[in-house]
Protein backbone atom coordinates (compact mmCIF):
# COMPACT_ATOMS: atom_id res chain seq x y z
CA UNK A 1 0.00 0.00 0.00
CA UNK A 2 2.65 2.52 1.10
CA UNK A 3 4.89 1.37 -1.78
CA UNK A 4 2.13 2.15 -4.27
CA UNK A 5 1.73 5.60 -2.76
CA UNK A 6 5.40 6.38 -3.44
CA UNK A 7 5.20 5.28 -7.06
CA UNK A 8 2.63 8.05 -7.64
CA UNK A 9 4.65 11.00 -8.93
CA UNK A 10 2.68 13.93 -7.46
CA UNK A 11 2.87 12.32 -4.03
CA UNK A 12 6.62 11.69 -4.14
CA UNK A 13 7.31 15.08 -5.76
CA UNK A 14 5.42 16.84 -2.97
CA UNK A 15 7.21 14.72 -0.38
CA UNK A 16 10.73 15.44 -1.74
CA UNK A 17 10.14 19.13 -2.49
CA UNK A 18 8.48 19.60 0.91
CA UNK A 19 11.45 17.95 2.62
CA UNK A 20 13.85 20.14 0.63
CA UNK A 21 11.94 23.32 1.54
CA UNK A 22 11.93 22.39 5.22
CA UNK A 23 15.68 21.62 5.03
CA UNK A 24 16.28 24.94 3.26
CA UNK A 25 14.34 26.78 5.95
CA UNK A 26 16.35 25.07 8.70
CA UNK A 27 19.63 25.86 6.93
CA UNK A 28 18.75 29.53 6.46
CA UNK A 29 17.72 29.80 10.11
CA UNK A 30 20.83 28.14 11.52
CA UNK A 31 23.39 29.02 8.79
CA UNK A 32 25.31 25.84 9.75
CA UNK A 33 27.29 24.26 6.89
CA UNK A 34 26.63 20.84 8.34
CA UNK A 35 22.88 21.37 7.89
CA UNK A 36 23.13 22.06 4.16
CA UNK A 37 19.82 21.04 2.50
CA UNK A 38 21.54 18.67 0.06
CA UNK A 39 22.71 16.67 3.08
CA UNK A 40 19.75 16.96 5.45
CA UNK A 41 17.14 16.33 2.70
CA UNK A 42 18.87 13.09 1.72
CA UNK A 43 19.06 11.94 5.34
CA UNK A 44 15.40 12.75 6.01
CA UNK A 45 14.25 11.01 2.81
CA UNK A 46 16.32 7.88 3.54
CA UNK A 47 15.06 7.91 7.13
CA UNK A 48 11.43 8.23 6.04
CA UNK A 49 11.74 5.48 3.43
CA UNK A 50 13.35 3.08 5.90
CA UNK A 51 10.86 3.93 8.63
CA UNK A 52 7.84 3.43 6.35
CA UNK A 53 9.45 0.33 4.80
CA UNK A 54 9.27 1.77 1.27
CA UNK A 55 11.28 0.03 -1.43
CA UNK A 56 13.79 2.29 -3.16
CA UNK A 57 12.49 1.15 -6.57
CA UNK A 58 9.05 2.61 -5.73
CA UNK A 59 10.57 5.88 -4.59
CA UNK A 60 12.85 5.97 -7.65
CA UNK A 61 9.83 5.68 -9.92
CA UNK A 62 7.95 8.43 -8.09
CA UNK A 63 10.90 10.84 -7.91
CA UNK A 64 11.96 10.35 -11.53
CA UNK A 65 11.16 13.93 -12.55
CA UNK A 66 13.41 15.45 -9.88
CA UNK A 67 16.26 13.12 -10.80
CA UNK A 68 15.73 13.94 -14.46
CA UNK A 69 16.15 17.68 -13.77
CA UNK A 70 19.84 17.14 -12.92
CA UNK A 71 20.64 17.12 -16.66
CA UNK A 72 18.81 20.36 -17.56
CA UNK A 73 20.31 22.06 -14.49
CA UNK A 74 23.81 21.31 -15.79
CA UNK A 75 22.81 22.73 -19.20
CA UNK A 76 21.45 25.85 -17.47
CA UNK A 77 24.90 26.44 -15.95
CA UNK A 78 25.87 27.58 -19.47
CA UNK A 79 24.03 30.82 -18.71
CA UNK A 80 26.29 31.52 -15.71
CA UNK A 81 29.33 30.95 -17.94
CA UNK A 82 27.96 33.48 -20.41
CA UNK A 83 27.47 36.06 -17.67
CA UNK A 84 31.01 35.58 -16.35
CA UNK A 85 32.81 35.17 -19.65
CA UNK A 86 35.09 38.19 -19.08
CA UNK A 87 36.44 36.56 -15.89
CA UNK A 88 37.02 33.25 -17.64
CA UNK A 89 38.91 34.91 -20.50
CA UNK A 90 41.11 36.83 -18.09
CA UNK A 91 41.88 33.75 -15.98
CA UNK A 92 41.99 31.03 -18.59
CA UNK A 93 45.63 30.00 -18.05
CA UNK A 94 45.34 29.82 -14.25
CA UNK A 95 42.02 27.96 -14.47
CA UNK A 96 43.45 25.32 -16.81
CA UNK A 97 46.63 24.96 -14.74
CA UNK A 98 44.74 24.61 -11.45
CA UNK A 99 42.30 22.05 -12.90
CA UNK A 100 45.05 19.92 -14.50
CA UNK A 101 47.11 19.76 -11.31
CA UNK A 102 43.97 19.32 -9.19
CA UNK A 103 42.90 16.38 -11.32
CA UNK A 104 46.30 14.69 -10.88
CA UNK A 105 46.29 15.33 -7.10
CA UNK A 106 42.77 13.89 -6.86
CA UNK A 107 43.57 10.67 -8.70
CA UNK A 108 46.99 10.04 -7.13
CA UNK A 109 45.85 10.76 -3.57
CA UNK A 110 42.74 8.61 -3.71
CA UNK A 111 44.69 5.70 -5.28
CA UNK A 112 47.49 5.79 -2.71
CA UNK A 113 45.28 6.22 0.34
CA UNK A 114 42.86 3.47 -0.75
CA UNK A 115 45.70 1.03 -1.58
CA UNK A 116 47.48 1.82 1.65
CA UNK A 117 44.28 1.04 3.57
CA UNK A 118 44.00 -2.31 1.85
CA UNK A 119 41.36 -1.70 -0.83
CA UNK A 120 41.55 -4.06 -3.82
CA UNK A 121 42.16 -2.86 -7.38
CA UNK A 122 38.46 -2.95 -8.33
CA UNK A 123 37.68 -0.55 -5.50
CA UNK A 124 40.68 1.64 -6.42
CA UNK A 125 39.54 1.84 -10.06
CA UNK A 126 36.05 2.77 -8.85
CA UNK A 127 37.43 5.62 -6.76
CA UNK A 128 39.73 7.24 -9.34
CA UNK A 129 37.06 9.46 -10.95
CA UNK A 130 35.36 10.40 -7.64
CA UNK A 131 35.62 14.17 -8.13
CA UNK A 132 33.90 14.08 -11.52
CA UNK A 133 30.21 14.46 -12.37
CA UNK A 134 28.39 11.08 -12.27
CA UNK A 135 27.93 10.36 -16.02
CA UNK A 136 31.63 10.99 -16.81
CA UNK A 137 32.78 9.18 -13.66
CA UNK A 138 30.81 6.05 -14.51
CA UNK A 139 32.28 6.00 -18.00
CA UNK A 140 35.85 6.27 -16.68
CA UNK A 141 35.25 3.70 -13.95
CA UNK A 142 33.77 1.12 -16.34
CA UNK A 143 36.60 1.51 -18.83
CA UNK A 144 39.37 0.92 -16.29
CA UNK A 145 37.98 -1.99 -14.31
CA UNK A 146 35.92 -0.28 -11.64
CA UNK A 147 32.39 -1.00 -10.45
CA UNK A 148 30.09 1.73 -11.89
CA UNK A 149 27.48 1.44 -9.08
CA UNK A 150 30.20 1.88 -6.46
CA UNK A 151 31.57 4.86 -8.40
CA UNK A 152 28.09 6.40 -8.52
CA UNK A 153 27.78 6.12 -4.73
CA UNK A 154 31.26 7.50 -4.10
CA UNK A 155 30.68 10.41 -6.49
CA UNK A 156 27.48 11.42 -4.71
CA UNK A 157 29.05 11.07 -1.26
CA UNK A 158 32.11 13.06 -2.38
CA UNK A 159 29.89 15.80 -3.84
CA UNK A 160 27.74 16.13 -0.74
CA UNK A 161 30.78 15.95 1.55
CA UNK A 162 32.60 18.65 -0.43
CA UNK A 163 29.50 20.85 -0.52
CA UNK A 164 29.19 20.63 3.25
CA UNK A 165 32.86 21.04 4.29
CA UNK A 166 33.98 23.27 1.36
CA UNK A 167 33.37 26.73 2.86
CA UNK A 168 34.99 25.68 6.16
CA UNK A 169 38.08 24.16 4.47
CA UNK A 170 38.57 27.19 2.24
CA UNK A 171 38.20 29.65 5.12
CA UNK A 172 40.83 27.69 7.08
CA UNK A 173 43.29 27.60 4.15
CA UNK A 174 42.89 31.25 3.23
CA UNK A 175 41.22 30.71 -0.14
CA UNK A 176 39.30 33.97 -0.47
CA UNK A 177 39.27 34.77 -4.21
CA UNK A 178 35.80 34.26 -5.68
CA UNK A 179 37.18 32.53 -8.77
CA UNK A 180 39.40 30.26 -6.68
CA UNK A 181 36.50 29.31 -4.39
CA UNK A 182 34.19 28.51 -7.31
CA UNK A 183 36.87 26.52 -9.09
CA UNK A 184 37.76 24.57 -5.93
CA UNK A 185 34.11 23.69 -5.23
CA UNK A 186 33.28 22.47 -8.74
CA UNK A 187 36.53 20.57 -9.31
CA UNK A 188 36.43 18.72 -6.00
CA UNK A 189 32.70 18.12 -5.64
CA UNK A 190 31.09 18.64 -9.09
CA UNK A 191 27.32 19.35 -9.14
CA UNK A 192 26.60 19.28 -5.43
CA UNK A 193 29.62 21.55 -4.87
CA UNK A 194 28.30 23.85 -7.59
CA UNK A 195 24.88 24.01 -5.95
CA UNK A 196 26.74 25.24 -2.87
CA UNK A 197 28.95 27.63 -4.88
CA UNK A 198 25.86 29.25 -6.45
CA UNK A 199 24.79 30.26 -2.93
CA UNK A 200 28.15 31.99 -2.41
CA UNK A 201 27.60 34.23 -5.43
CA UNK A 202 27.22 34.48 -9.22
CA UNK A 203 30.98 34.37 -9.92
CA UNK A 204 31.57 31.34 -7.69
CA UNK A 205 28.57 29.54 -9.20
CA UNK A 206 29.53 30.15 -12.82
CA UNK A 207 33.19 29.21 -12.34
CA UNK A 208 32.16 26.11 -10.39
CA UNK A 209 29.85 25.06 -13.24
CA UNK A 210 32.69 25.51 -15.70
CA UNK A 211 35.03 23.41 -13.58
CA UNK A 212 32.60 20.44 -13.61
CA UNK A 213 33.16 20.09 -17.35
CA UNK A 214 36.89 20.87 -17.24
CA UNK A 215 37.53 18.46 -14.37
CA UNK A 216 35.59 15.74 -16.21
CA UNK A 217 37.71 16.11 -19.34
CA UNK A 218 41.00 16.45 -17.40
CA UNK A 219 40.27 13.33 -15.34
CA UNK A 220 39.22 11.31 -18.40
CA UNK A 221 42.64 12.12 -19.90
CA UNK A 222 44.68 11.76 -16.69
CA UNK A 223 43.37 8.39 -15.43
CA UNK A 224 44.85 6.36 -18.32
CA UNK A 225 48.07 8.45 -18.30
CA UNK A 226 48.61 8.08 -14.56
CA UNK A 227 47.87 4.36 -14.75
CA UNK A 228 51.01 3.99 -16.88
CA UNK A 229 53.06 5.69 -14.17
CA UNK A 230 51.67 4.51 -10.81
CA UNK A 231 50.79 0.94 -11.76
Amino acid at each position, binding site marked *: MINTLFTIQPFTLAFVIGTYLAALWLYRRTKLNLLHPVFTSILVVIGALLLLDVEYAAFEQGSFLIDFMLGPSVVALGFGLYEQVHLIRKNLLSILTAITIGSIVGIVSVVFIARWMG*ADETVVASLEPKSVTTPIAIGISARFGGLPPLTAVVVVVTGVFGAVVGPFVMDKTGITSKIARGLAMGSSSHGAGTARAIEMGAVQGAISGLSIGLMGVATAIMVPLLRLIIK
Partner: protein
Amino acid sequence: MYGIFIIFLFYAIGILISKLFGEIIPGSVIGMVLLFVALMTRIVNTEKVKPVACFITRHMALFFVPVGAGLMVTAHYFKGATLAIVTASAVSTVLVMITVGLIQQFMEKKND
Protein backbone atom coordinates in the same frame (compact mmCIF):
# COMPACT_ATOMS: atom_id res chain seq x y z
CA MET B 1 8.26 28.98 -21.99
CA TYR B 2 10.98 30.00 -24.46
CA GLY B 3 13.62 29.55 -21.77
CA ILE B 4 12.40 26.05 -20.86
CA PHE B 5 12.32 25.11 -24.54
CA ILE B 6 15.89 26.35 -25.10
CA ILE B 7 17.28 24.43 -22.12
CA PHE B 8 15.59 21.17 -23.13
CA LEU B 9 16.58 21.69 -26.76
CA PHE B 10 20.26 22.12 -25.88
CA TYR B 11 20.07 19.16 -23.50
CA ALA B 12 18.64 17.06 -26.34
CA ILE B 13 21.33 18.19 -28.80
CA GLY B 14 23.98 17.53 -26.13
CA ILE B 15 22.74 13.97 -25.58
CA LEU B 16 22.67 13.37 -29.33
CA ILE B 17 26.27 14.54 -29.79
CA SER B 18 27.34 12.56 -26.72
CA LYS B 19 25.84 9.36 -28.15
CA LEU B 20 27.57 9.94 -31.50
CA PHE B 21 30.96 10.12 -29.77
CA GLY B 22 30.73 7.08 -27.55
CA GLU B 23 29.27 8.89 -24.52
CA ILE B 24 32.66 9.91 -23.14
CA ILE B 25 31.40 13.33 -22.13
CA PRO B 26 27.79 13.46 -20.83
CA GLY B 27 25.10 15.18 -22.89
CA SER B 28 24.37 17.68 -20.12
CA VAL B 29 27.95 18.99 -20.12
CA ILE B 30 27.97 19.25 -23.94
CA GLY B 31 24.58 21.03 -23.71
CA MET B 32 26.05 23.49 -21.21
CA VAL B 33 28.91 24.36 -23.59
CA LEU B 34 26.54 24.66 -26.57
CA LEU B 35 24.16 26.92 -24.63
CA PHE B 36 27.12 29.09 -23.67
CA VAL B 37 28.20 29.35 -27.33
CA ALA B 38 24.63 30.11 -28.46
CA LEU B 39 24.34 32.89 -25.86
CA MET B 40 27.70 34.38 -26.88
CA THR B 41 26.76 34.40 -30.55
CA ARG B 42 23.26 35.74 -29.79
CA ILE B 43 21.59 32.78 -31.46
CA VAL B 44 19.26 32.57 -28.46
CA ASN B 45 17.56 35.39 -26.58
CA THR B 46 19.61 36.00 -23.41
CA GLU B 47 16.95 37.87 -21.48
CA LYS B 48 14.33 35.19 -22.00
CA VAL B 49 16.65 32.35 -20.93
CA LYS B 50 17.81 34.15 -17.80
CA PRO B 51 14.83 33.64 -15.41
CA VAL B 52 14.55 29.90 -16.15
CA ALA B 53 18.31 29.29 -16.00
CA CYS B 54 18.61 31.19 -12.74
CA PHE B 55 15.66 29.42 -11.16
CA ILE B 56 16.87 25.89 -11.99
CA THR B 57 20.48 26.48 -10.98
CA ARG B 58 19.50 28.17 -7.71
CA HIS B 59 17.68 25.02 -6.61
CA MET B 60 20.17 22.51 -8.02
CA ALA B 61 20.60 20.95 -4.56
CA LEU B 62 17.03 19.58 -4.76
CA PHE B 63 17.84 17.52 -7.85
CA PHE B 64 20.50 15.56 -5.95
CA VAL B 65 18.06 14.22 -3.38
CA PRO B 66 16.78 11.14 -5.32
CA VAL B 67 20.33 10.02 -6.32
CA GLY B 68 21.50 10.61 -2.77
CA ALA B 69 18.63 8.58 -1.33
CA GLY B 70 19.83 5.76 -3.62
CA LEU B 71 22.60 5.27 -1.06
CA MET B 72 20.17 3.18 0.98
CA VAL B 73 20.22 0.41 -1.62
CA THR B 74 23.80 0.68 -2.87
CA ALA B 75 25.48 0.76 0.55
CA HIS B 76 26.36 -2.93 0.19
CA TYR B 77 28.90 -2.12 -2.55
CA PHE B 78 31.09 -0.72 0.18
CA LYS B 79 31.41 -4.20 1.71
CA GLY B 80 34.57 -4.53 3.81
CA ALA B 81 36.28 -1.54 2.28
CA THR B 82 34.05 1.13 3.85
CA LEU B 83 36.75 2.78 5.93
CA ALA B 84 39.27 2.83 3.06
CA ILE B 85 36.70 4.23 0.63
CA VAL B 86 35.41 6.93 2.95
CA THR B 87 38.87 8.01 4.15
CA ALA B 88 40.44 8.04 0.68
CA SER B 89 37.52 9.97 -0.83
CA ALA B 90 37.26 12.52 1.97
CA VAL B 91 41.00 13.25 2.19
CA SER B 92 41.39 13.38 -1.57
CA THR B 93 38.38 15.72 -1.96
CA VAL B 94 39.83 18.17 0.53
CA LEU B 95 43.26 17.94 -1.18
CA VAL B 96 41.76 18.71 -4.59
CA MET B 97 39.84 21.63 -3.13
CA ILE B 98 42.91 23.16 -1.48
CA THR B 99 45.23 22.52 -4.47
CA VAL B 100 42.88 24.00 -7.05
CA GLY B 101 41.89 26.93 -4.84
CA LEU B 102 45.43 27.88 -3.88
CA ILE B 103 46.90 27.55 -7.40
CA GLN B 104 44.11 29.68 -8.86
CA GLN B 105 44.43 32.30 -6.12
CA PHE B 106 48.24 32.42 -6.42
CA MET B 107 48.23 32.80 -10.22
CA GLU B 108 45.43 35.35 -10.03
CA LYS B 109 47.37 37.60 -7.65
CA LYS B 110 50.53 37.32 -9.76
CA ASN B 111 48.48 38.40 -12.75
CA ASP B 112 47.23 41.61 -11.14
